[in-house]
């Protein structure tokens, strides 16, 4: 068996011990942070985190799905992403549902809702229809 320098062994032991302590400290910090976050949100995970998670995952899904789109269809891709962006109609419908006579600035809010709904409707109908028009032109040989 090869001779091992006892000093080296000592050094390794010391380093291992230091790493062990560091890991302990990290764990303690992590627990403290988690406890703090949990206290701040009343013991539960803030719902914002869930929204953020969905958003982050959707970005990643979007990344892979869009790279899979054939370059020949990049224009329809743009028009269809445009069409689906008009799902902002959800917000427009909510503001259109506000009773304009319920005081404060509800009248103004209602007007903004009407305008947003009109704009979103242009996109919903125009976006999907023009995409369909383009896609219907793509034909195979023969």
């Amino acid at each position: 068996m090869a001779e091992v320098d006892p000093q080296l062994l000592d050094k390794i032991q010391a380093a291992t011990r230091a790493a062990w302590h560091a890991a302990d400290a990290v764990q303690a910090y992590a627990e403290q942070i988690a406890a703090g976050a949990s206290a701040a949100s009343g013991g539960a995970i803030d719902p914002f985190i869930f929204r953020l998670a969905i958003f982050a995952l959707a970005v990643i899904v979007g990344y892979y799905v869009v790279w899979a789109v054939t370059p020949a269809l990049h224009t329809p891709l743009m028009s269809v992403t445009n069409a689906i962006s008009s799902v902002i109609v959800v917000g427009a419908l909510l503001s259109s549902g506000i009773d304009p006579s319920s005081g404060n600035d509800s009248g103004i809010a209602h007007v903004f809702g009407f305008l947003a709904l009109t704009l979103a409707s242009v996109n919903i109908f125009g976006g999907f229809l023009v995409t369909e028009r383009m896609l219907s032109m793509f034909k195979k040989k023969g």
Partner: protein
Amino acid sequence: MLNGNIAALLYLVSGILFILALRGLSSPETARQGNWFGVIGMGIAAATTFFYQLPWGFSSFLWVLLAVAIGGSIGVWRARTIEMTAMPQLVALFHALIGLAAVFVAASALYAPQGFGLGVRNEIHGSTLFEMSLGAAIGAITFTGSVIAFLKLDGRMTGNPILLANRHAINIGLGILLAVSIFAFVPTAAHLVFWLIVLVSFALGVLLIVPIGGADMPVVISMLNSYSGWAAAAIGFTLVNLALIITGALVGSSGAILSYVMCRGMNRSFISVMLGGFGGETAVPAGTREAETRPVKQGSAEGAAKILLAAKKVIVVPGYGMAVAQAQHVVGVMADILKSKGVDVKYAIHPVAGRMPGHMNVLLAEANVPYDEVFELTDINPEFPDADVAFVIGANDITNPAAKTDSSSPIYGMPILDVEHAKDVLFVKRGMGTGYAGVENELFFRPNTTMLFGDAKKMVDAIVKAMG
């Protein structure tokens, strides 16, 4: 009145349908089905919101009908009548509408938060206010930026870069002002500050796009596509709506990827495109450039017809000039004649040919060119050495070998279509002018190149006639 949890699940379903809509575009065969997934997803999202809001007041309901009727008919009308060559303008305008809608929704939520379940007036949660102001800011930038892009694409505004003095300083100043106003808005929810944010963002949108030249529009339009997505996502966070968050993320990453693809197609960095000043509509009059006196071989339509008919394999390289001249149909007719005589005809598409990603493919599809005859740069380049004729119509820079050989050229490093390897090269061009990059194309002076000067449509018409 729909249960809130069920509504949230339905929004999730519509978000998943939108993912499937994009998934469908991976092949022309599944693309139309994908579009229907999108329509269904939109229907679910709208219906869910509508039923969630029950009972509707009668007058509110009438207002909704009116808005959908007005917006819907404008949308249907534009979608039916738009020329395929004008698709970039239409898409730019659609981006603008999304941006403005985001501003309006944010404003509405600020003025009447109770309608969105965001608490009562003046007591909106700080994080909600932050998301709201972000949505309004990105939406406002998208709006004015897209309007400028529309004006440039539609030729209502010069396609040349408009360079203000100190524009970078102005932009940085506005950016700082925007950040400061957002931080002032979050703790106070002051309506005045909200409108300041919108105003500053409007100005930023204009100033960001004005210095960018016409040839860089494919990047700009992709970037604005991305912005409209991020605006929608920010509104989604504000309203805690899954469909909006998912869609915003999808659209945001889609636009970002397209911007990247376009930049790579030009070998330019995104930053350099955004700094602007490059690629006007007309050739840059380079004072230092020596006047070009070398002779070129000029051909006639009859001669071109002869060369084409004698060929076994022809590769057509279309560019923006074909779109401007509306020559795609007659190019399709010419290809049909050649095919009927047993000539193998293929099309080569450069990633940045046209004014938006994939624009040439749509124009060729419109001219009844089967999509399996149309090839991307990397797939077609190895075929040029076997081609008898490369028929270049309305394209210039994307064929210029200087991109490979001349490290001092502004287009150096840009991937090009190797038309120089074809036995004969026919260039249909309006004149000897340089391309957007303002560089001379060495190919024009080669012995196997024939220049066909004239309007693309008239020239190809004449070639078709000469073919008999």
